[in-house]
């Protein structure tokens, strides 16, 4: 079987969970004997990929999907140039793909869906569309772009099979996009937990961690308001906000307004290595996302031996039992849980040990197997 995968992010150039997903998926498909032809945007640095059964083709373009503070090409939101680049990338993908042989096309999110649909029309090959998040999720429903929603809608219509990362997402695709439930298959994301520190001993420095893009979607405001409530009861707690994003200045203003800056640290961008330490040093990881199709960071925290509090509507909450599941807006309740976890270390200890055991259900080989089953069913 020869699969053409149209990717978006790929290590080392990545800004979110999608890059990890693409990498692990093609690697594990390759391991299981599926031949993968992967098209990804060309980044500034030349990187050699050596993955069994996988041919990586870098297509000339330099797309950064989110407006991160160190990328200067965008003004507000996605920016005009960005859309031009996406168009160019899709055009180029179609052009190159038509010179190659493949049995099916597999696209990830709206950004490559246009090329997927065109290729299906021209070649008649089946088209698989994985939806990792929707425009509504990414914008936390604040000014979602109709133009992107339309691509997502068409993608769902024209795809022969749709894969998504949680039941919550499947429900959204059916209800909001009118998707056909019969052709939507839920495959939860995986994690290679050996990359993380595991169940090391905690030093209990009372660190509560937020890690993610600083955007409305990830709910950093709720984290700050939670912090203020915790600090009413305990002063010896440090709230770490790791990551970057367009909301950083606003968040700093809020933290100053709440008078909690003495207990809040904004780390900015973290390298892969720093990220591992951040997860492991924390006593509690909080993921108060407004929208979270899956929530891979929660699994990464668990893999680092840290107990997690996650938003009830995240995909990961459907599968992980040993964690706290909260309404992201209920800062009162999140604060209650944080204080109790700090007051009674046995609680976090029980939770992290039990949740760590649950990771065995999240192997990437399982994701690859289920994906192959989708391919075979076409």
């Amino acid at each position, binding site marked *: 079987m020869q699969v053409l995968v149209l990717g978006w992010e790929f290590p080392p150039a990545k800004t979110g969970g999608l890059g990890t997903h693409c990498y692990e998926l093609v690697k594990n498909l390759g391991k299981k004997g599926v031949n993968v032809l992967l098209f990804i945007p060309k980044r500034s640095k030349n990187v050699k990929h050596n993955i069994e059964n996988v041919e990586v083709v870098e297509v000339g373009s330099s797309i950064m999907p989110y407006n991160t503070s160190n990328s200067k090409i965008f003004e507000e939101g996605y920016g005009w140039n960005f859309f031009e680049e996406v168009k160019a990338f899709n055009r180029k993908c179609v052009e190159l793909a038509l010179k190659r042989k493949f049995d099916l096309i597999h696209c990830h999110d709206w950004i490559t869906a246009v090329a997927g649909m065109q290729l299906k029309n021209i070649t008649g090959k089946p088209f698989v569309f994985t939806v990792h998040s929707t425009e509504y999720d990414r914008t936390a429903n604040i000014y979602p772009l109709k133009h992107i929603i339309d691509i997502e809608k068409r993608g769902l219509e024209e795809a022969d099979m749709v894969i998504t990362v949680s039941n919550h997402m499947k429900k959204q695709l059916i209800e909001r996009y009118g998707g056909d439930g019969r052709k939507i298959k839920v495959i939860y994301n995986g994690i290679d937990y050996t990359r993380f520190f595991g169940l090391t001993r905690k030093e209990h420095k009372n660190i509560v961690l937020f890690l993610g893009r600083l955007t409305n979607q990830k709910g950093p405001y709720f984290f700050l308001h939670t912090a203020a409530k915790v600090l009413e009861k305990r002063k010896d707690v440090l709230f770490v906000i790791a990551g970057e994003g367009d909301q950083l200045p606003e968040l700093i203003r809020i933290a100053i307004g709440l008078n909690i800056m003495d207990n809040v640290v904004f780390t900015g961008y973290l390298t892969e290595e720093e990220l591992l330490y951040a997860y492991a040093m924390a006593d509690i990881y909080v993921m108060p996302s407004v929208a979270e199709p899956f929530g891979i960071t929660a699994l990464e925290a668990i893999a680092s031996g840290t107990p997690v509090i996650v938003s009830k509507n995240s995909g990961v909450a459907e599968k992980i039992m040993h964690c*706290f599941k909260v309404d992201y807006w209920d800062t*009162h309740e999140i*604060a209650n849980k944080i204080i*109790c976890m700090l*007051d009674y270390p046995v609680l976090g200890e029980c939770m992290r040990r039990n949740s760590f055991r649950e990771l065995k259900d999240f192997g990437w080989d399982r994701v690859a197997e289920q994906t192959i089953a989708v391919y075979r069913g076409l």
Partner: protein
Amino acid sequence: MASVCFYFQIHQPIRLNKFTVFTKNAPYFDNERNRKYFERISRKCYLPTNKVLLNLIDQFGKKFKIAFSLTGVFIEQCKSFAPEVLESFIELSKTNCVEFLSETYYHSLAALFSVEEFKKQIKLHKDLVNDLFNQRPQVFRNTEAMYSNGIAKIIEDLGYKGIITEGHESILGWRSPNYLYTPKDCNKLVALLRNYKLSDDIGFRFSARWWEEYPLTADKYASWASACEGNCINIFIDYETFGEHQWEDTGIFEFLKVLPHEILKYNNLDFKTPSEIVKSYKPVGIIDVPHIISWADIQRDTSAWLENDMQRLAFERMAKLEKTVKKNSELLHIWRLLQTSDHFYYMCTKWWADGDVHKYFNPYNSPYDAFINFMNILQDIERRLK
């Protein structure tokens, strides 16, 4: 000749109110939820089952007998939420075919931390049973059939004739549960052991389609009882089996309605209550139980309540208050209500990921939520005791 001994356990915990670290001056117990659950179970189980049993006693006269153990916290809720349920138990008690057993008022784990507290709660319960049903209980059953040599000795010293526990291989070895045994170090007390196979056939497997004996009929069940060797066949089950664990549409009520008839068809079977069993038969051996056993889960130990560190911490912190709380009559009852085993059961992480045994009318989303809520209330009580 073997006697079939039916004993039904009846208990509903008084569930706690949602209590956060920020909560002040709020009630500790969730009356609304407790009422809702209680009314539902009354409608589905207590009232219809009591009616069936009363009819059976009318029908068979003195030939059909049963025993109940009603916890004090169950009776308290009866009084507040469903007085008609209590009335129907009183009516049953007047037939002279129903025996009431003794246990701790609070369905507590008191035996695991304080002999004095354990005895006090037994006395509270005994007085309550005497007041309501005009009976002095002769046979004791500890919370979830928790039992050890030490517990048996305390019960003998209190003047009881019998004690109930689980007839498990870990204490019996090759021996049968269908006889009376003498607890080690006791002279007068005898132990009645639950026949867990025949009990679970009704309690757990009645509607299990995977079971090769499905569907279970009364005549088949009676034939199994008749084929048993021994003196007594102790069928000890939760009362909620009827109509709640096994829903009405499983046919559980029809089964119960014809079971006495099917059993009495056999000349070698009759019905006896626990205290009649104790009077009628002699113990055949000694059981030696140095470590506490129970009838819960596969392990038959205390791990459902006191296995993980959260459960242990919560239990220790609660137990530590014994001395100070006894000087405060207002908080004493509340502290005892916190001892109800269910609060610790809700914190169990043992089966949680895959099993739903622990989910039954569980007010919490997770064992961690159960722990937090319990500790916040305990902390509030500690504060008030200072």
